[in-house]
């Protein structure tokens, strides 16, 4: 189906089902229960899951296939966001032109940075991209303040000269982003017993775009172009000796992954029309590297899993404060309760980075292939058990 092999089709369908049913899957705990803290099925976080999924899928095309480690990918995300917000300010609140412009601009930006950075490989390439990204950040943060509004971030105002559409709605507020009239902010709550599931228009738009991006990445992985990129990763010198020039291929991969980042940036701005300079900081670039490695670099689904894991930690663990902890351990005697809170405290709330660091360390040490390898191992172990079971079952009667 769709020009894919059976295995890839299955994967695509599985991802499609997971993303479409995400409002259910991410809200497993009834509202009001103690575990509701761990629910992640609210629009903003679900949007972040898929948007950073797109970002990581794109990064994986460069890093997973060619092995070029870019430390500056957040710059493209930021450029995409700024382009989208400017499109909202100047043209229309429809997200389509905004997303198209953000992909184009970040593609051009990637072409320029890639052309210069790809003259070097290995660590030198990483440092070059890092330098470019930090330059972009500094520009956005301070020098280009008239365009980027500096540290405050670029926002919509009531007097934006919007060519298609009004500057302000009839009741005097800023119009909201939409897709041909479908407001990105609109959501529908479904109450089933104690559960509440929120279906947000913005999330489904992002999810559909992510599926398209995922499909495109499968096609790239399986194409002769993808094979060429893998060849670059395995041995670039050998490619040179066989008479192939690897540079156009790496540059193409760099631009494609830059465009993916721009798409993610444009989507972020479409869901929440603000573009902040911190989006371009090196920590943001580092985050996508973490996502890809945590999930499994070079695998199709890995980056999406990694993005989900990190965003989940950032948004859920960081909100567990001492108050919540005391609630959890309140069944214990006072002394032990305080002791337990003191033990758990450094790992939640503002200490979520620590938890993330530990998990990252464990994954890299014991599962070099990331979460995907973990999944495969579990799958293999289960299959082996099953095989043994069926063997036992079949041999039993003979005894």
């Amino acid at each position, binding site marked *: 189906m769709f020009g894919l092999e059976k295995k890839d089709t299955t994967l695509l369908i599985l991802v499609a089902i997971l993303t479409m049913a995400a409002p259910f899957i991410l809200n497993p705990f009834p509202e009001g229960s103690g575990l509701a803290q761990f629910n992640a099925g*609210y629009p903003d976080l679900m949007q972040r899951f898929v948007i950073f999924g797109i970002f990581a899928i794109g990064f994986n095309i460069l890093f997973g296939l060619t092995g070029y480690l870019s430390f500056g990918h957040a710059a493209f995300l930021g450029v995409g966001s700024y382009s989208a917000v400017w499109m909202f300010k100047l043209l229309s609140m429809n997200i389509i032109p905004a997303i198209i412009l953000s992909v184009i601009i970040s593609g051009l930006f990637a072409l320029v940075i890639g052309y210069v950075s790809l003259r070097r490989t290995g660590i030198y390439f990483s440092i070059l991209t890092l330098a470019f990204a930090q330059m972009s950040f500094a520009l956005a943060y301070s020098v280009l303040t008239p365009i980027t509004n500096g540290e405050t971030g670029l926002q919509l105002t009531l007097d934006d000269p919007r060519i298609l559409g009004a500057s302000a709605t009839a009741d*005097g507020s800023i119009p909201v982003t939409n897709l041909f009239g479908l407001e990105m902010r609109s959501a529908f*709550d479904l109450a089933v017993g104690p559960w509440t599931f*929120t279906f947000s228009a913005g999330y489904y738009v992002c999810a559909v775009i992510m599926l398209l991006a995922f499909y495109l990445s499968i096609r790239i992985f399986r194409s002769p172009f993808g094979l060429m990129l893998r060849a670059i990763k395995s041995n670039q010198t050998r490619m040179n000796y066989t008479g192939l020039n690897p540079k156009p291929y790496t540059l193409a991969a760099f631009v494609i992954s830059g465009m993916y980042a721009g798409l993610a940036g444009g989507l972020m701005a479409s869901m*929440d029309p*603000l573009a902040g300079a911190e989006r371009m900081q090196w920590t943001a670039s580092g985050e996508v590297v973490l996502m890809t490695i945590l999930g499994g670099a070079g695998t199709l689904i890995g980056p999406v899993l990694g993005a989900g894991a990190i965003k989940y930690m950032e948004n859920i663990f960081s*909100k567990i404060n001492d108050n919540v902890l005391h609630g959890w351990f309140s069944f214990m005697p006072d002394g032990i309760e305080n002791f337990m809170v003191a033990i758990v405290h450094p790992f939640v709330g503002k200490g979520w980075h620590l938890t993330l660091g530990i998990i990252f360390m464990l994954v890299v040490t014991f599962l070099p292939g990331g979460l995907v390898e973990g999944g495969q191992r579990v799958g293999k172990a289960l299959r082996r058990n099953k095989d043994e079971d069926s063997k036992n079952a079949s041999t039993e009667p003979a005894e």
Partner: protein
Amino acid sequence: MSNNLTRRGVLKTGAVAGAGLALPTYLSAASHSGFTNAPTGSTVTLGFNVPQTGPYADEGADELRAYELAVEHLNGGGDGGMLNTFSSKALEGNGILGKKVEYVTGDTQTKSDAARASAKSMIEKDGAIMITGGSSSGVAIAVQGLCQEAGVIFMAGLTHSNDTTGKDKKANGFRHFFNGYMSGAALAPVLKSLYGDDRKAYHLTADYTWGWTQQESIAAATEALGWETVNNVLTPLAATDFSSYIAPVKDSGADVLVLNHYGGNMVNSLTNAVQFGLREAQANGKNFEIVVPLFSRLMARGAGDNIKGIVGSTGWHWSLQDEGSKAFVKSFGTKYGFPPSQAAHTCYVQTLLYADAVARAGSFNPCAVVEALEGFEFDGMGNGPTLYRAEDHQCFKDVLVVRGKENPTSEFDLLEIVEVTPAAQVTYPPDHPMFAGGALGTCNPGA
């Protein structure tokens, strides 16, 4: 073998069928009560969005303490604090409109993006009806914009930029704290009497909305005295070492250094300035002076001995002797063992003001709250009689000019009050050029 009727199979089928039958009975769209997150149960949730990491983490931690105290008082716990001195008596200590106050917290990281994500999760996931907090104007403006779009009230925490209630003002946002213009207006007469009227000032300014507008305000106020602004250098918010910015000051011909820095930034830049010997230096035949237009006790503690004799302005100080301040200092001190900072004060007051506005309006509807707060005059919250101006949602109250104490008696007694500038002296027209260019718009109740 076609006998599939196992125990497990029957249970499974039964469960699925049961769920299927039960589903339509519960299937219903959420009730729309006319505004976002209308509280339905016996509780109401407030969102406290403060910096727990980054350069303003100290302020954030103190803000959170103040919020917890405010919630305790609103729910009838503790000694009631400022509820006893507040001129409005609409609050009864039974929560807000009889609903128990609960809260959720989040980390702004002093980054616009992170702050908005955190506020969004409070609104979307936790059902917060009001967002408050923040210790940076950039964050305050970003979150204020979000709250306007989402249709909840934003009660700004510590934000001192003119833009918060100037060009970026929003109908759903309110600020109790003072601003850069007020600092300038309050400081100028004191600076004139201390340092004369023919000074040359060199500005180091945190490179974001607060720094820019404060620098603009101070430069305008001091130039009106006859001072000259020699140079203004922008420094990144994330900077921790300012030696490279301080080094050129001595040879610039300036005799006053103005540090438009806050929190950890100011602690570091002041320390650098002292290390470079600026306090003892002479320039143009006068003693070299350092001015920090906005400072707080937390910063004074961070800067240690370096703060002694330095003049600046502050929104509130725990040594104020009015009834409201005394009641607040007492209940804060009883709970935490040390006096509150100005950030804690403004956050505590903002929470009470919001609760009171809801009680007076008789509704949680943001538009009703906006109406109740606009033009509201109150007293008994420290700073004397205060007005929440309807035109820009800015509070007008007394501003303190303070100086680092030469001989502190305790680790909290670091500032002495030089002058209490009356509200009338720091009041400006709503269309003042430094605040022009924005519009409140109309209140947005969301859903």
